């Protein structure tokens, strides 16, 4: 008689080493170049905003996990840290800290936990927090300060997209140079100013295969085509597609916000539709809308379609013949 027994489990018996926290930490690491450049450009303001946003996100997450009697390991999965980081990066450097905390609480509470926590939310939590602040404090959310490198004596400072929209910068010839946009020596939200830092992070994300490449590619292509048509038709009035790609929140949105796994489609075709929708919406808002910038609303808008896109874009199964 043999006494020893073994564990019964369903196959497969092998598993790769990746896990949800590892993916989250890859995303956090990919945001480090932008984190460092924002600290470089905005000094103490940047650090204060990052600390208060991440702290408030973690505290809110902990409170909800405790109220809902959920396991504590969810707190350390890194998702709340990402929400805090991303929220801070989309805030104006001059925003007061109490308001930043309100945004962070809204991001986790309204953007994530009311839906059931990680994996269940419909909208990108960081953008929900930002939209909340934009509605609650519209003036504070559109007041900008110059980066520390620029020795200018103004208290407020316009972003390149503000210039484009409200100062008729193309006609005046005062459009921000592409080089400044690329390096980040401009006004704007904490993390969005330096295209270079964002692209470094994006390369790392691609290398780690942590994001769906279709989404940034689709967004950038759609925006290029959309703004390119107007630019070619009238270059004296409209800015070039390259300007639109590098300016404002497009890159951070395309690589780090729209690619949020939870709130983007799971099917390849769904991802393409979602990405093209965002790109065109951004173009529409920037060129014809009331706001100079439209990345946040475009992503939130397309987020609403994700369940539908998932439902109606099921991939063709091997051997399936679809009736025409």
């Amino acid at each position: 008689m043999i006494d020893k027994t073994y564990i019964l489990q369903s196959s497969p018996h092998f598993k790769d080493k990746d896990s949800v926290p590892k993916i989250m930490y890859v995303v956090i690491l990919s945001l480090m170049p932008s984190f460092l450049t924002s600290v470089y450009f905005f000094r103490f303001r940047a650090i204060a905003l990052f600390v208060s946003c991440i702290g408030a996100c973690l505290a809110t997450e902990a409170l909800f996990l405790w109220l809902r009697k959920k396991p504590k390991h969810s707190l350390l999965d890194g998702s709340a840290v990402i929400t805090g980081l991303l929220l801070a990066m989309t805030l104006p450097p001059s925003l007061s800290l109490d308001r930043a905390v309100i945004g962070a609480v809204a991001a986790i509470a309204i953007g994530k936990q009311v839906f059931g926590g990680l994996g269940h939310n419909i909208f990108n939590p960081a953008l929900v927090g930002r939209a909340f602040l934009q509605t609650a404090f519209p003036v504070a959310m559109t007041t900008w300060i110059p980066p520390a490198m620029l020795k200018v004596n103004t208290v407020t400072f316009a972003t390149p997209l503000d210039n484009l929209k409200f100062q008729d910068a193309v006609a005046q010839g005062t459009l921000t140079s592409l080089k400044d946009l690329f390096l980040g020596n401009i006004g704007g939200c904490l993390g969005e100013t330096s295209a270079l830092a964002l692209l470094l992070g994006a390369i790392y994300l691609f290398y780690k295969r942590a994001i769906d490449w279709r989404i940034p590619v689709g967004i950038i292509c759609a925006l290029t085509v959309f703004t390119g048509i107007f630019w070619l038709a009238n270059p004296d009035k409209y800015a070039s597609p390259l300007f639109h790609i590098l300016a404002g929140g497009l890159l951070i949105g395309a690589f780090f916000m729209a690619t949020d796994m939870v709130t983007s489609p799971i099917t390849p075709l769904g991802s393409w539709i979602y990405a093209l929708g965002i790109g065109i919406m951004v173009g529409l808002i920037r060129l014809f809308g009331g706001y100079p910038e439209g990345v946040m609303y475009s992503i939130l808008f397309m987020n609403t379609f994700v369940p539908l896109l998932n439902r109606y874009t099921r991939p063709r199964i091997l051997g399936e013949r679809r009736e025409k």
Partner: protein
Amino acid sequence: MKTITFPHGIHPPVYKEPTAEKRIETMAPPEKVFIPLHQHFGAPAEPLVKKGDEVYLGQIIGEAKALFSASVHASVSGKVLAVDGYNHPLGKPLLSVSIANDGQDRLFPDLQETKDAFSLSPDEIRQKVKEAGIVGLGGAAFPTTVKLSPPKGKTIDTIIINGCECEPILTSDYRLMLEYPEDILKGTELVRIATGAKRIIVGIEDNKKKAFGLLQEKIQDYTGEIVLLKTKYPQGAEKNLIYAALRREVPRGGLPFDVGVVVQNVGTVKAIWDAVSKGKPLYERALTVSGNGIKEPKNLLVRIGTTFQNVVDFCGGFEESVNILVMGGPMMGLSQWTSDVPVIKGTSGILAWTAPDPSIEYTCIRCGRCIDNCPMRLVPTQLMKYVRFDHLSEAENWGIQDCVECGCCQYTCPANIPLVHWIRLGKNQIMSSRRRKSA
């Protein structure tokens, strides 16, 4: 060299080194064997012997009565101890014939050799394969006679011989290709005659270059071609192999017949050759005993009905800390609760290792890796959710029945969700509700 493949799939570590260069050793038959009458896809065989009977090696002891069934033969000569329920790799006791080995290996006198096997008619080949109780030896154990009998109106143009052995750890098919290349090619020729096919393709993964080179050389004397396939899991899955080799898609719910193809594993064609030319029934098979829980990993030729414990004892025994015992490969194998289960026709491997503590399960973050890797191009996470929330008709619309349970989705799931388990559960629920309706 140019390799071909199919879209999606994964690259798990292969761990074939411990046994890849070890010859297939013949294990001496044990004192007692326990031969289940149900070792294949379909209905169990019906017992032909009773307690106290004397049986010969290779004597038929269970007869296939249904179309989807296979005969069972004694794997030792000796006295029948019982015809009763015994532990089975499927998890519950099933009707088995226990035989006390008399150590004589007295061969059943009715077994006949055939001098010129290639001159047999398709029906004669099928009959001999049926008598020998041959089933697919890759693991699924589908009765081979059925595969050799294309239904009316379907013509078979191509035979694909599956030498992929894409499951990690297993090496017995690789060894068969190195040690019995001629038998494999001769068996393939018999399959070609039986099905009336024109073309033969042998598919081998590019991490088995030695087998590829050897068969390439040997096949000059036969008709057929050898193709090199990319090392990728599940390259040996029937529908994916057909796609890789011929760019043909087996229709949903269909069989390889529907695209004019028959796929046979290398071990199966060798067994076909042995059965037809030597009259040898399927009473032993080659398998790999490996994993870091086995003291001396080996490739073995083992009599059907030998217990896993006997086999592992022959390989130096278990390591102390072993807590997982698997029949088959690590991706699709069946875990066993005890080592007191017999080797059956579908036992391609006996693996044992020490499993780490189970990792935390997170909620699905919709990363989409299961979709990117699914060789059937399904949406596993969606299937899992449909089953979880009892939307079984939706799960069917999304192709739950097309799942081959290869495990690519679960292997790569960062949330550690038991996707395959949920899909299996859903399939079972759908099948049982269908049975209720038809009853």
